[in-house]
């Protein structure tokens, strides 16, 4: 018997074909399919990061006038040009910036901004207008769009315990995976396994019970796929030992092992700095910058940086003028930070925020955040943005 035939025959009697369809392990992508597989990594800074003390308009005197006690001293600022510079806690990102792997988009927001955390986060995650309530997230609707590469729950992975609204569509939802091994163990508990084994997609009803079983079966097979695929790759780069560092390390593992995932989502809390801002924000920014710098360098090393785009956002920026407690209160427009090997315009994408023409003490937005989403959808995720955003946005020359 020829070797080829032998392989064919053994495949026929091996377990793979005997299993019901939903239990079949998903095959990892072949190497040639892998190149050109683009990943989007979204980093959410929760609480409303103070953009003006992140990318600092140190060249503008108004900044120092409005922030008497919390402005960052000029000599400490990591200068990018003669107007803007990094908070010193971001210094790990300077090297990344100098390599042309970072774009800073200033004054991003939306019309009629809402200053409540809940509502503004809702708006950013659902990509709604400010007077519109959507129950699905923008990545969720991307999954719903049924594009060529978004047919499975693991198309969008949130590295967390729970799944954010951004990741929930009407028909499809992403999957939350803090730790692939743990997820796998959970789904292999005997009762879970027995119930999955006794059901198949084919005999499920359209009712809610059918929906629960369908979700359970998908979770079962996704957990298997994610665990088996990702465990073959070991991350060798060094990451800071922080929660975010570990999350991004997991994302690196997923990307480099060839997981067929398109979107990764992680969050970092602790940015609602009404009181004693400098220390608190400094700590969080350093956690952020050290983890992201390690991640970007790791991806460069493994040749994946050109296929990866990282976007960082927060639900709003903070007021231009500080408050009486050495902190800042809720504001409006903010900067969005992008990282990747294929940026169209690395460096500072648009003008520094205007500190003179304010809207009741807050920055006026110049760029609608949905124009950024539109660009990512059109150019990175290969789906027409109007399908996801419910109207057409022009997009920007970001990637």
């Amino acid at each position, binding site marked *: 018997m020829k070797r080829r035939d032998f392989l064919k025959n053994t495949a026929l009697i091996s377990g793979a074909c005997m299993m019901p369809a939903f239990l079949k392990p998903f095959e990892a992508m072949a190497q040639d399919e892998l190149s050109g597989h683009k990943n989007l990594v979204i980093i959410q800074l929760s609480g409303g990061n103070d953009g003006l003390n992140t990318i600092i308009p140190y060249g503008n005197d108004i900044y120092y006038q409005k922030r008497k006690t919390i402005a960052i001293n000029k000599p400490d600022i990591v200068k990018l040009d003669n107007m803007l510079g990094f908070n010193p806690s971001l210094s790990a990102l300077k090297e990344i910036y100098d390599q042309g792997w970072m774009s800073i988009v200033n004054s991003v927001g939306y019309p009629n901004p809402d200053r409540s955390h*809940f509502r503004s986060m809702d708006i950013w995650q659902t990509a709604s207008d400010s007077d519109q309530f959507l129950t699905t997230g923008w990545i969720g609707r991307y999954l719903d769009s049924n594009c060529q590469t978004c047919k499975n729950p693991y198309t969008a992975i949130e590295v967390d315990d729970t799944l954010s609204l951004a990741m929930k569509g009407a028909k499809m939802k992403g999957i939350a995976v803090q730790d692939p091994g743990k997820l796998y163990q959970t789904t292999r508990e005997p009762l879970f396994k027995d119930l999955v084994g006794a059901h198949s997609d084919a005999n499920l009803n359209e009712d809610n019970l059918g929906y629960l079983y369908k979700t359970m079966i998908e979770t079962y097979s996704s957990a298997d796929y994610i665990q088996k695929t990702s465990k073959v790759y070991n991350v060798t780069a060094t990451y800071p030992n922080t929660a975010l560092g570990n999350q991004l390390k997991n994302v690196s593992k997923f990307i480099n092992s060839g997981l067929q995932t398109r979107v990764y989502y992680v969050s970092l809390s602790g940015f609602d700095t009404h009181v004693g801002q400098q220390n608190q924000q400094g700590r969080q920014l350093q956690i952020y910058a050290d983890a992201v710098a390690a991640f970007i360098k790791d991806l460069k090393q493994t040749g994946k940086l050109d296929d990866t785009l990282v976007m960082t956002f927060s639900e709003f920026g903070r007021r231009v003028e500080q408050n009486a407690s050495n902190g800042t209160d809720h504001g409006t427009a903010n900067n969005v930070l992008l990282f990747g090997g294929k940026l169209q315009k690395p460096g500072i994408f648009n003008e520094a925020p205007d500190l003179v023409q304010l809207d009741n003490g807050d920055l006026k937005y110049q760029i609608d955040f949905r124009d950024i989403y539109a660009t990512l959808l059109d150019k990175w995720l290969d789906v027409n943005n109007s399908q996801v955003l419910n109207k057409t946005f022009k997009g920007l020359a970001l990637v």
Partner: protein
Amino acid sequence: MNNAINIKHLHARAGFGIRFDELHEQQNWSVKKAVKKLFEASEKMDPLAAVDENIDLRLKPAMQTDMQKRALQEERNRQERLLNEAWLQQLSNTDAQLREKMTLFWHNHFACNIGNAKYQQDLNNIERTNALGNFKTLLLQVSQTPAMLQFLNNQQNQRGHPNENFARELMELFTLGRGHYTEQDIKESARAFTGFAFNGKTGLYTFNLRVHDDGTKTFLGQTGNFKGEDILNIITTNKQTAVFICTKLYHYFVNDIPDAKHINQMADVFYRSGYEIKPLLEFMFLADWFYEDKNRGNLIKSPVELLVGLNRQFYINYQNPDVLIQFQRTLGQVLFRPPNVAGWPGGRNWIDSSSLMYRMKIPSIILNAGVIDFAGKATPEDEAYLASQRKQQFNVINRVQAAPDWGKFLKEIPMDTSHLQIAEFLLQPKLNQAIIDEVNKSADIKAAVIEVVSTPEYQLC
């Protein structure tokens, strides 16, 4: 005639599930008798009283140190925890099941998310008092709560500087629903609501004549010198309000998929009675269609319904009730923290890969003293607290420290009850063969119970 199946369905929907001994007592009752009993039990009204001080009314020192600010934040957080836990306790322990179930409905209907626990408690008590009363009364009282006035910015709604937020949500989410009013109606009614305000020094509602716009307004085709009360009257005179509320009630009590015929029957009853809630609910619980197969065991329990149902059934006593907040966070429903004024969307929205697994795992963790290895995300409003306490995360509780009263639960169950009968009692949907096989082979009743509450079927009511 044994009517157990209908009685069990009624309690799964009108309350948070029936106990074995109650079912044994009621299994031969008519539905009518059982409904009457539900309303009688709900005549009792226990307002929440966990929060006894309005922190916003304290005299603020001219300068507060950072430390004082942090301490204040900690106090606010503590009040909110106490309020959450007090309500969860009440939901789990009270006999006034229908009243609490309806309070939960109004809590989601008049969704409000603010940082003042006292105002939240006041709003919640108004919803509880009027839960089975008159909707028009409830609507007016809610419109005058500091909670809602603050949340929907009516404090800033003044003559010459209208703020339309309250007027817009009133019509879109509380009464008529989209498509039954114009942008102009919003503008005009916002003017009528100028002066609906609360006094920041007393924390009480007051009509502020000074900022009221007493000019002529044209609203939904009528013209006059309207005040807020007039607008509410015009809105409720429009039958669409009855249809809108009944559609939501149908989703909550009957089925995710609306049935126009049944909803219109409900709206007729509601409208004719002048928006009395009790006769409407009686009509619904007594309707034949309420007990049709397609309306049984097919509603996805909200996280709070899931936790409360478990607490009631197994008499669970929590040494550290904070764990219940951690569970709410993990499952995506923290009481008093709805995602926005539209409330929690509910239904299949509760379910994703991870939430389903936690929902299947948490009951056994509670009943079996398991380890918790998940925390859930902080809600966006928790961020200020987290930042002020210099930590990124809540302390994660990883031991439940809860004790179900197995003795009490098992005492209600006759010795000769089979595992299968237990499963049929605890689950609302019809059982499939896999579940029947599982419980038949489980070692004892306790093991069978723990398996049953860990199934997808247990997520439904």
